[in-house]
Structure formats: structure tokens, C-alpha cells
């Protein structure tokens, strides 16, 4: 099953990959290990999981205005997500995605947190603000 959503372009470019989804906010500074590409924030529902080369779906960023540097560092070290989908973008994540040249969209016509599950295959077209979801096969 394929679902197509229309949103707002934040950063252009196209990418696709396996989705990783959280309903919790993300701080890259202190919350993500830029060398390993894993979430390290204590008690976060994604703690220990890798976001490298995945389509990272979360509500929005939080934390220090130094957060963009961490996203930039991850892009340089090839540990960054392949694309970012936010419910509503704020400047820390958006500026980081601009520095790291990571395709990013927000304000989709339906809530991505309701429609996208971890493991779904997601295509992000940052240029047109379009997201295409292929649901993973239900096992068992």
C-alpha cells in the first residue's frame, strides 16, 4: 500500500529509506552521538537506536542553538539521517538540515506520526514537499 502526502519544502533534494519514528522531541546536541549516529538521550524512546541513512520522523527539535553543528558533523561523517520529516519545523533542526544538506519537509496534510511507522519505506522529495510511504509488510 502506498500513501502520498503533500507538505512544505524546508530543504530540497530527494532521498529514501527505512523510516524511524518517534513522538518525542529530539535534541541533536547531547541527545545524539554524531560518531555512531545513535540516539543517546537517557530515557528517550529511541535510546540506543541508529538514525543513520534513515528517514527520521519526529515532531520537532528542542534544546541548544548549537544543535545545528551536530547535524552538520553527522552529514560530514556520513552518520546523518537521509531525510527529515517534522510535524512543524523549528530553526534548530531546519538550520542543521540546511548546513548538512539533508532533504527536509514539514506541515504535511496528514500527521506523519499517525501514518508512518518505524520500518516503513519512505521517499522524501524535498523539492516538491512530497512524501511517499510504502507500508512494511505485517509479519505473522
Amino acid at each position, binding site marked *: 500500500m502506498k500513501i502520498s502526502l503533500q507538505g*512544505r519544502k524546508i*530543504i530540497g533534494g530527494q532521498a529514501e529509506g527505512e523510516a524511524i519514528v518517534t513522538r518525542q522531541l529530539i535534541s541533536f546536541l547531547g541527545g545524539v552521538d554524531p560518531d555512531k549516529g545513535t540516539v543517546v538521550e537517557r530515557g528517550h524512546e529511541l535510546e540506543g537506536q541508529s538514525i543513520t541513512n534513515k528517514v527520521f520522523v519526529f515532531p520537532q527539535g528542542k534544546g541548544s542553538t*548549537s544543535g545545528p*553543528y*551536530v547535524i552538520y558533523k553527522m552529514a*560530514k561523517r556520513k552518520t546523518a539521517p537521509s531525510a527529515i520529516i517534522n510535524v512543524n*519545523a523549528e*530553526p*534548530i533542526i*531546519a538550520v542543521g538540515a540546511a548546513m548538512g544538506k539533508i532533504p527536509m519537509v514539514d506541515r504535511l496534510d496528514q500527521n506523519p506520526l499517525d501514518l508512518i511507522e518505524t520500518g516503513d519505506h519512505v521517499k522524501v522529495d524535498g523539492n516538491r514537499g512530497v512524501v511517499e510511504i510504502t507500508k512494511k509488510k505485517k509479519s505473522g
Partner: protein
Amino acid sequence: MKLTDHEKKTLDGGFGTGPQDAMQLLMTLGTVYDAERMIPVTTCHLGGRNVLLGGQENIDWMTDLYEGGARFQVFTSWNAGCCDFNLWKEMGLSEKLVEDQKRSDEIYVKLGAVPLGTCLPYYHGNLPMPGTSFAAGGSAGATFVNSMIGARGNREGSPSVVAASICGVTPEYGLHLKENRYGKVIVDLSGLDFAAMTLGDFSALGFYIGRTLVDKTPVIVGVPRQITQDQIRFLISPMPTGGAISLVHIVGVTPEAPSVEEALGHKKPEDTISVSRKDLQSSYEKLTTTRGGKVDLVAFGCPHCSIGQIQQIASLLDGKKIHSDTRLWVGTSRHYQTMAREMGYAKVIEKAGGLIIADVCVAPGAPFHLVKGVRTVAINSARGAYFIPGACGVEVIFADTKECIEAAINGKWRA
């Protein structure tokens, strides 16, 4: 967003990848804030220059921009770093830290920055005109210029300030727009005895107001017309840390507040609060993380000390001796450091065992944790006390100037 032909050409790479990347970043910011257009900035001030804050990623990113043809297009100064290039040994710092800071500075010099090295850039040549827009890292300075000069700027991170300086523009959002500059909450200070208030008290008061109002621009009433710039700096610099306030109206004092009505944009205030001595006391208690034992370092200079403050510190230290296990740093600009030497204050402070250091942030980009044996720092600033535990990993005592000096002499906090 509507762009001019020149901005479009920049975005399409017509001036190289450096300006293109910078414009892309500004476009992103503009998109997030629903800005309609770009507006010119007249001056910029860079916070990420401090190597303890910006780090290697900052250097890498700025090098990419430089190699892509980017240069600063408007007057751009840089903030305090992490070491005095002449007094680093006396400060107990390593040569490696000095080299790291110098290496980081190189890229800023290449891009065209003016090395002011202070969070008081507005006293040293970086002074935008009223009503014009600026881009600045360092929330204390940005709040001062917004409030006292009536120039317009937002609280922002270092990358967008760098991009604004390269493109000479910034997206028009937030405090760049007059309609967002009106006050929301009246803060009545007429119950306070200003004549009895120390600089620490002004700082405690500012932190309380920030914490209470969170992000609502205050319209402060009941302040005597004779309030000094030192007092105002201490009052407003903690507001962006207690809350997220970057503009403060003081009726009868600041340029956009000739009257309560005008400061509020002729609208009704959302709320009115009055502040008592007790509220102010709560900031001292809330920000202090330890009360016992040794004080390893006493710091003044968040924001950087004016020559008047240096004079006060020198007079309190005259003929006294700082405890042999305790350090005392007076952080200021190079200009005031030179003046303090000429006027004899440096001699008095050094004779007592302290140092007047220039080009150094004493919080949040301070190198306290890199000085051997420093576990507890006392400071006369709520803004400093807010940053120090998290940024430097040491305990902090927030107290007024006189109490801090007493602690420096005794080597410990009073029982």
C-alpha cells in the same frame, strides 16, 4: 518568500557555493518563520568564535563557506573567546587551548571579522542605528541593543548570524517587525528601593523577570530616570536565560518606551505584575548550587566589566590579599583592560592576587573546568550563574560583588 534578483542569483550559485549555502540557510530560517522577504542587516556579532562553544565543526563549516567564495559583507565583530592570549599561563590554561583558539580565529579573520573579543561590542564600535536590523549571537548583547538602542534583532544561533553577514541580509521575522516589538506584560518595580540595590540585585531581579514572563516582552515601570548603564546591563542580560526575552522596555528610559501606552502599542497588557525584594532573593537561592566549603575562583565579567565596575572591584581589593588557593578574574574588553592598566586599577587588583583578563568569556564559554583544582566558582551575575554549572561542569555561588570579594579573600563561602 519574495527575493530580489540579487538574492535569487546568490541562491542559484551565481556568486559561488559559499554565498549560495549561506543564502540557503537564511531561506530555510525564513521558511520556518513564514517571513515574506529578506531585509538588510547593518552589523553582525558572532558568538560561535569561542572554540569551547563552536568547536571543530564550526571551523569546518566556515572553511567550506570561505573556500566557496564567501566573505563578510557588513561590519562583523566577534565575541569573547576562552583565553587571554597574554595571560593564559597566569590563568592556569594550556598552550594547546591557546593554539586551538588562534586556529579557530584564523578563519574568522579570513572572512573579514573585526576582533573585538567582547560581549560589549556596542561600546567598541559595533553599534547599529535605531530602527535598523542586526544579527547577533550572544543574547546579552542582542538584548541590550534591542532595548537600549532600538535596533532590531532576534535571539539566534551562530550559523544564521554568519550567513546574514555573508549575504548582508536576514529574513524579516520576529523582532525585526515593529508589530512584534510591543510589550505584553507590565512589570511594576516601584516597590523596590533602587538606592539600596547592588549590581547583583539588578541581576537577580532580571533573572526573576525572565523566569516569570518566559517569552513575553516586559514593559517595566517605576524605574528612576537616573538608572545607570551598568545597572541596566545587569538587569536585562539575565532575561534571555531566565526566560527567552530579547527585548525589554523601560518606560521613560529606553527609546521605544516614551510612555506605557506606546510601549504596549496602545493595546491592553496581558498581565501586570509587581516585584518585591523577596522575589529577587529567590534568584540568589535558585541559581546557587553549593553553599559549603572552598571557593576556588571568583569571576566578574558576565557581561564584561565596564571601567566603572573595574574601578569598584579595585577599590574593594585595595590593600587586601586574595587567599592563596583562590583565583580572581576580572573579565573585560581589551580596550578597558588597557585603560585599567593606565589608570592603576590593574596594579591594585594584581597586587591583591587577581587578574584583569581580556577576550575571555567568564560564562558560558569560560575555561573554568580546564584550570586545575577549580570546582566552585563564585560570580556576581545571575546570567553567569545560570550557565556555569551546565557549560563548565563546576559548582556555582551567585552573590553580590562585595560578598564575592569577601569569599576570594577568605578562600571560602561565609559560614
